[in-house]
């Protein structure tokens, strides 16, 4: 993934990008990528709880961590990192947060894993794993130490309040 990302940055002649991880799994992945690429700018963290599109359906997320963007995103090239890309709603929210902090020059999306179930026209630029899942299966990142993608049965419907930010299970989505 790091090699692919490096090649993409070279192709686009981007010298010092800002890397930003989406809480929580995206930050874990971003920490690894940030170290492997040896980026000079500090890593940013993004919490998308205030921008989710399901607040009107399920209420407040219980664990909001403050977003932390140490460097202004204005006019910069960004690498947005998430763990598992499924519906695309998390990325939609993350882009909205970023644009409320400023106007980036470009945004690259890197996801550790990608699976079926897209509900928005959002595709990653760099992907670690294309997961082919059986119906009812889900994939989740466990961490932070050791970091591992876990494949398993999705929990039954009626998730507890704000159980999964990334909106994974089949109970999620448009009924």
């Amino acid at each position, binding site marked *: 993934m790091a090699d692919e990302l490096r090649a993409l940055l070279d192709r686009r002649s981007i010298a010092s990008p800002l890397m930003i991880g989406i809480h929580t799994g995206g930050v874990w992945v971003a920490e690894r990528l940030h170290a492997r690429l040896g980026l000079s700018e500090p890593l940013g963290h993004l919490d998308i709880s205030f921008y989710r599109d399901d607040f*009107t*359906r399920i209420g*407040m997320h219980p664990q909001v961590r403050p977003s932390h963007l140490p460097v202004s995103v204005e006019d910069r090239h960004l690498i947005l990192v998430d763990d598992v890309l499924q519906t695309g709603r998390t990325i939609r929210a993350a882009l909205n947060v970023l644009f409320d902090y400023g106007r980036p020059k470009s945004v690259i999306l890197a996801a550790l894993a990608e699976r079926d179930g897209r509900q928005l026209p959002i595709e990653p630029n760099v992907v670690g794993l294309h997961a082919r899942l059986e119906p009812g299966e889900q994939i989740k990142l466990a961490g932070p130490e050791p970091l591992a993608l876990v494949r398993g049965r999705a929990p039954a419907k009626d998730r507890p309040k704000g159980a999964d930010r990334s909106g994974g299970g089949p109970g999620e989505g448009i009924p």
Partner: protein
Amino acid sequence: MSALNPQLDGHGNLKHFLTIEGLSRGLLTEILDQSEGFLGVARQAVKKVPLCRGKVVANLFFETSTRTRTTFELAAKRLSADVLNLNIATSSTSKGETLLDTLRNLEAMHVDMFVVRHASSGAAHFIAAHADPHVSIINAGDGRHSHPTQGMLDMFTIRRHKGDFANLCVAIVGDVLHSRVARSQIAALNVLGAAEVRVIAPRTLIPAEAESLGLRVCYDLREGVRGADVVIMLRLQRERMSGALLPSEHEYYQLFGLTEERLSTAKPDAIVMHPGPINRGVEMDSAVADGARSVILEQVSNGIAVRMAVMSMCIGTQNLRGQMRQGADQGDLNG
């Protein structure tokens, strides 16, 4: 008790925010944790998040206020809600409309949340008891009783400076008798487990029940702030005083005004707080108010984040209820 708490829904989520009393340490901590997240919104270029888009918040102020009303307004606007400011003193109630009729009219305008300030203790509870089930009430100060968002923003400010409450000694100085702010602070400090809470004031301004609340009462300022981690100054509430409780403001300052010299017995890293508005030269010297240990303006900024947290938690609970209503209507949500 908690099952009957009018502030909570059946699942223990915050529905109204009327008073600190009856709320658990877990819930108060959740408010503080959520506030931490909202603090970052002020650092965004666009100081707004879309959480409460499409919701209508009415500021219902039966008593004048500048700081509290504007920070509530700003909090609601940063949550993308629409805000109505109703200056009741100059509107329908002065034409003879009752409080409940005012309420019904606003409900008919599909207001989702009322922020209420009233000179009578219990006004917010009264409105909550009579309001339509889908609206939330936030108490922005009722008489001498309670001012819970002020209490929580003070707790938030203390936590940001001191971390944990367990070993803290907090000194509250001044007009405790008339202060709803002090009542909310004391209740919150007790729930959050502060080690010691002291009140310092002339005898005439200490409520009779002070000692039964577990407070240490002190009549001497220098003694009272000795070893304190946090010194909270209260405003002299002239508008609520009837009769001769104080000889003069000048004499009050001579005995209970906070100066750098009197503050010297407190811990070296003590912080000084005041809910505002400050009467300089009455409650405290300007050198203290503008000094290095003063966190008074920080309290104001923190107030916006805490109010955003409380408002969005209540609106979030409304959404959950809406969801359940829908679910009941449809039979099966996932069908």
